[in-house]
């Protein structure tokens, strides 16, 4: 495999791995807190599930980006020639979604875990807990957006 292709594959792998790590840690936090509430009030499952699932989006963004890179370099069909310069560009383009996903996933998990306390004590304020958690999401979305725009700007083949 050429260096360019290696770098592109590395970029795709980083995007999905970093964002995935962020999401899994984040969901882990929120779900642990949710489990604590569920032992006493299992009827709150739906609200708790929504809060627990929120930090999961980063992993999805990473997955979408990796898929996009694979399409771009033809890994899913006819493989294209990727120069080292293009490879570095693709690797760099993958970083926003990977890094923003990693950190925002962890922090969104913490905010969601705090939101679980709101659901436990004042379930009518559930939406506010979701809004706070969604604020963190903004930066994962910005990371995804920039990654996609950068990838679209890179000409391969």
């Amino acid at each position, binding site marked *: 495999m050429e260096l360019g292709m290696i770098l592109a594959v590395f970029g795709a792998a980083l995007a999905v791995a970093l964002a995935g790590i962020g999401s899994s840690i984040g969901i882990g936090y929120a779900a642990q807190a949710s*489990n604590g509430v569920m032992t*006493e009030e299992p009827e709150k499952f739906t609200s708790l599930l929504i809060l627990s699932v929120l930090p999961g989006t980063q992993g999805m963004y990473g997955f979408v980006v990796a898929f996009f890179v694979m399409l771009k370099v033809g890994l899913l069909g006819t493989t294209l020639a990727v120069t080292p310069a293009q490879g570095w560009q693709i690797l760099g383009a993958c970083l926003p979604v990977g890094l923003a996903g990693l950190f925002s996933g962890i922090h969104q998990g913490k905010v969601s875990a705090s939101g679980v306390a709101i659901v436990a004590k004042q379930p009518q304020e559930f939406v506010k807990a979701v809004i706070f958690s969604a604020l963190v999401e903004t930066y994962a979305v910005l990371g995804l957006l920039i990654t996609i725009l950068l990838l679209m700007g890179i000409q391969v083949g």
Partner: protein
Amino acid sequence: MAYSSLIKMKWDSRYLSAVGNIRVLEKRIMGRPAMVRLLEARSEDEMCRVLGDYGYGEFLDDGSSIHDFESILSAHLRRSYELIEKMSAGRLIARISRRRYDFHNLKALLKADLLGEDPEPSLSTLGEIPVSRMKDVLSGKAKEISPELDVVVRDVKAYLENESSPQVVDLLVDKAYIDYISKMGSEIGIQFFDRLVSKQVDLTNIKTLMRIRKMESNRKLLVDALLPGGEIDNAVLLRLYDRSNEDILSALRRTSYASIANAGGGEWLHKGDISKLEHLSDNFILGYLGQARIVTSGPEPLLSYLMQKDKEIKILRIILVGKINSIPLDLIRERLTVFYG
């Protein structure tokens, strides 16, 4: 109260699930409105209904009468401790908190021994160590209770040879308990515990100062009884020993315990009311733990829950004793002011 110290706290994900659980359990703690409802209940049935709403139902359903409140309250409190013990993150915290009752029982036995009274009414069933074992050790039938309690027994006996006062028992046992929790705190490595312990050291030292002044005992006992590790320097407390009450209050006002010094214009100190000081100290620690509201993942909410349960049981005992013995409501309310200010 400053939140900064808690905000800086390390995120400890071991407590996430336990704290989630506590947030639900906290809703069932009887607050002031619930206590007022109970106080104003017109019949035993109504009292049972109020208690049933707050998790006491299962202990009333098995045919127990509300007159048997002592066993209902201790069964309920025991279950609260067991609940925390069952959470993997809470086991150690519940165990450390429960040891308080062992020290309390030992104190009751030693004092009863000294005064020739029956210790039974003041014994608690919540301790980890069977009271019978403590009795055996005190009567010389057995040798050891547990390392930390054996030291207390030895110290108290040594002191009582010179000064036969129940206050000495209070002082030494309280000191041993704080020693124990501070050692446990550093062993389990919860930073928050250190801060809590240093506050408890201060409050115990203030209590000690007050007790020894009341006993008009010698300064040497104060030197021995003051605990190290508090925020207030022991030298300051020693200087206050032969100062006036006003001097003590103004010194306290300059510390973080100003709220205690100001409570009721410092009347507790003028009157020498140690039990009032104990309630004020409990409320202070509860206030400190109240910061636990913002903690999502740490041991504070667990400790706070257990302390709130202890307080709930104390208040319930006053209300139920009063209601069952037909004491006028105003008198009961007056007794409750120590808790609610």
